[in-house]
């Protein structure tokens, strides 16, 4: 006997769509409040002169941008520092990460131990890491200088001399973060079929030729991701500088993210800080686009 079935009020497609939105909504609402909201707000703040203490925002148009880009010499000094930091950190980090990955991508006794050792700093608290290195890099009595003394080298006061301070924060930051890129490279290396290497070996390619002609080109997508992420990360560096040098000596390590923090939360120039944050966003975006375009051209 045929049963009469009453048609549901909503179509199947509508019901499925509602269910989907139900599942997505917690994340979506969080995204709106904590990500999109502040992003929109920062555009507004950047056009105001807003002193956090007076709680009064005055609309000033593009004055904050004009101030940063054309009037305030500190800004360009800070950008220069950030660029030096990135130029030092990104190639060093990537070269080290790739070398470690090449050494640790194949199984051998103890490989997990070494991977853990190199990855451990990534999950260590950045502040704790910086404090430990600050002690180790002390001019007198620091572990690094003591070790140098054993081999007859009189080490500098690393974090107090402008030239050395930047090098010291770069190297310690690289050691902290290299494990992450190493893992990305290991994953990429392991996804390259062994057959390619074997086919090349049969054709007489040396290990260096295999790396140069097969492995390195096949790593290109990963290299691009690592390069973009590391560059962005290097422009955003804050905690490391905050703890190790506080931007000193003589503003020698005062980088953009730390400068924004200073302007916003030390001098309470929220409007100016917001404008600086947008400029940093533009710089990072431009650098990323350049990297992506260069890579694409290289691959074509």
């Amino acid at each position, binding site marked *: 006997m045929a049963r009469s079935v009453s048609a549901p009020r909503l179509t199947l497609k509508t019901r499925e769509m509602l269910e989907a939105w139900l599942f997505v909504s917690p994340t979506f609402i969080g995204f709106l409040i904590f990500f999109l909201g502040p992003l929109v707000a920062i555009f507004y703040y950047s056009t105001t002169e807003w002193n956090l203490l007076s709680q009064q925002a005055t609309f000033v148009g593009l004055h904050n941008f004009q101030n940063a880009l054309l009037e305030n010499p500190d800004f360009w000094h800070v950008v220069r520092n950030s660029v030096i930091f990135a130029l030092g950190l990104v190639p060093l980090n990537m070269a080290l990460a790739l070398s470690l990955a090449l050494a640790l991508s194949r199984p051998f006794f103890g490989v997990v131990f070494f991977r853990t050792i190199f990855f451990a700093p990534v999950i260590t608290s950045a502040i704790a890491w910086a404090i430990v290195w600050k002690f180790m890099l002390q001019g007198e009595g620091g572990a690094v200088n003591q070790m140098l003394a054993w081999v007859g080298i009189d080490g500098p006061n690393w974090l107090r001399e402008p030239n050395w301070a930047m090098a010291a924060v770069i190297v310690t930051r690289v050691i902290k973060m290299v494990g992450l890129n190493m893992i990305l490279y290991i994953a990429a290396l392991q996804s390259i*079929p062994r*057959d*390619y290497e*074997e*086919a*090349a*070996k*049969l*054709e*007489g*390619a040396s290990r260096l*030729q295999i790396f140069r*002609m*097969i492995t390195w*080109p*096949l790593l*290109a997508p990963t290299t691009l991701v690592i390069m973009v992420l590391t560059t962005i990360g290097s422009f955003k560096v804050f905690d490391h500088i905050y703890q190790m040098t506080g931007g000193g000596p003589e503003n020698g390590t005062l980088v953009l993210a730390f400068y924004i923090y200073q302007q916003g939360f030390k001098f309470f120039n929220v409007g100016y800080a917001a404008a600086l944050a947008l400029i940093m966003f533009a710089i990072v975006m431009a650098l990323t686009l350049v990297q992506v375009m260069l890579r694409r051209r290289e*691959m074509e």
Partner: protein
Amino acid sequence: MTKVLLKDIRKRFGTVEVIRGVDLQIEDGEFVVFVGPSGCGKSTLLRLISGLEHISDGELHIGDRLVNEVPAAKRGVAMVFQSYALYPHLTVRDNMGFGLKIRKVPAKERARRVSEAAATLKLEPLLDRFPRQLSGGQRQRVAIGRAIVGNPEVFLFDEPLSNLDAELRVHMRSEIAALHQRLSTTMIYVTHDQIEAMTLADKIVVLREGKIEQVGSPHELYNEPGTIFVAQFIGSPKMNILPLFGGQPITHNSSVPATAASVGVRPEHLSLVAPSNTALRGKVRLAEYTGAVTLIHVELDGGQTCLAIHNQGIAPEIGAEVGLKTAPEHLHFFDNEGRTV
């Protein structure tokens, strides 16, 4: 002249011996197929010949050279991999010319040899494409082309057709056979597909658990299998093996060797007859119609299942009582150890 000679070849991975003393002579220009079930060591043996794995013991000669300690690139072999191993970032032209570039062959000569190989394999229109833009069969041809340009003395194929669909496999099989005829180079081919082995080989090497079970021409292996293993591995559907204890009605009119413990007969050599015409009877349990023939599964009165190929008229119904008959010359007798007697 490029003979390949294997003398008591052994390969150990740690304490596990996967190749356990292989002796084999491959003649110049011969097409030899290594066949066997998964894990029998056929690919390992091929990799030992190629130089991608080190030989633990024994001697390997290619031509008149002992090559145990000769690096892979200098053995004069080229290999076609199961995955094709085409470099995804290089065009077909660059893939094919890769080895020549490594060997610093001048660009002009390189281009000539790539064009020649491309012409042989009808790859000319594809030379500027990337592997991702090719079909499975085209990739396979490029992989073969890459092997050809190096002018190797020995070609090694490691299950080259296993990633292709059935139709393309048949087509590529004939292309490989034609290529062998044209080049007349020694070819060693690994497969687990006995049809491929039968159709391509001058000589088949059946491997089992790291040892050679039998070597012979396809005809020899099919008609004179040395063991039950070979008898059942070569030929499709596989040979029926029936125990002889208590007397086996199939051997009714044959002289049975004294040491025989079992008897084998191929499904294509069994014909269906009326139950009253034979002592070997049973019930039809399954009939698999393949178009040209029907494969009949008959449960014998003794409980064993016997396969028979039926290619005349309508197949009997499931459950029908049938008789099975064969000529005495089609019977194979095996002893307790599974060896032919």
